[in-house]
């Protein structure tokens, strides 16, 4: 997801690129956490990863980050939070964990249209 997502942080990566879209909140069941862990593992393996939190998925970025979210960032992954989903749930941007960037759907569309990576939804 190259320069749109994280600029120089993707330099030197060896794998492809993934836009991973998490739509379920942390309390929906264990799979949401597993999905974020998968994103962190892909980033650790050298893949450029953008994790987009949308719908109830934005709840994962509130307060302190989960271990998986923190690991994803430390491994060079990017965390995007859908601004519309935040506003719809009256969640303040100020409560987001460090490193999470608020984006709109235009940013997501730009990535989907411009790049050759894969997109995965959960």
């Amino acid at each position: 997801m190259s320069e749109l997502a994280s600029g120089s942080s993707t330099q030197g990566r060896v794998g492809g690129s993934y836009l991973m879209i998490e739509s379920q909140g942390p309390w929906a069941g264990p799979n949401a956490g597993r999905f974020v862990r998968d994103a962190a593992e892909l980033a650790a393996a050298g893949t450029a990863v953008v994790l987009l939190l949308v719908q109830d998925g934005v709840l994962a970025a509130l307060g302190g980050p989960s271990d998986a979210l923190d690991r994803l960032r430390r491994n060079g992954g990017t965390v995007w939070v859908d601004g519309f989903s935040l506003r719809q749930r009256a969640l303040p941007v100020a409560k987001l964990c460090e490193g999470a960037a608020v984006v709109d759907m235009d940013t997501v569309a730009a990535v989907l249209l411009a790049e050759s990576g894969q997109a995965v939804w959960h």
Partner: protein
Amino acid sequence: MALATKRWDLLLIMTAPPHYADTFTTVLRLADAVLRRDGSARVWACGYSTMLTQDTHGETKPTNTRAPDVDHPSSASIVRDLISGHGGRFGWIGCTACSDERGATNHIGEVLLRSPGRLMATMSTSAKTIFIGGA
């Protein structure tokens, strides 16, 4: 001479039921954003998502008693406007098997109906496919 196959930028396969979460809204927002960037997108509706484009919805939702003077478009109306308003850059496909199973066979005329046997062929005409599960 064979006809050229139309290529699409994005295919969204929506098997998630439409009203247990705001998935339908997200799909519309994403499709709208792609269209604003002059891209093309289409949706393959499976499962209960086939209900979204029934002509029995009419043009508007039932009256919201807290805002009785405001008309809110039905899902079928929104899909129809997206299809007709973008010069062939937006499409909506209804799965015939899912429609038949649910008796949801009265789609608006703009919806293309396809057998699930053509899903792979449909995917092959799109640069990217996002599968939204949860049926």
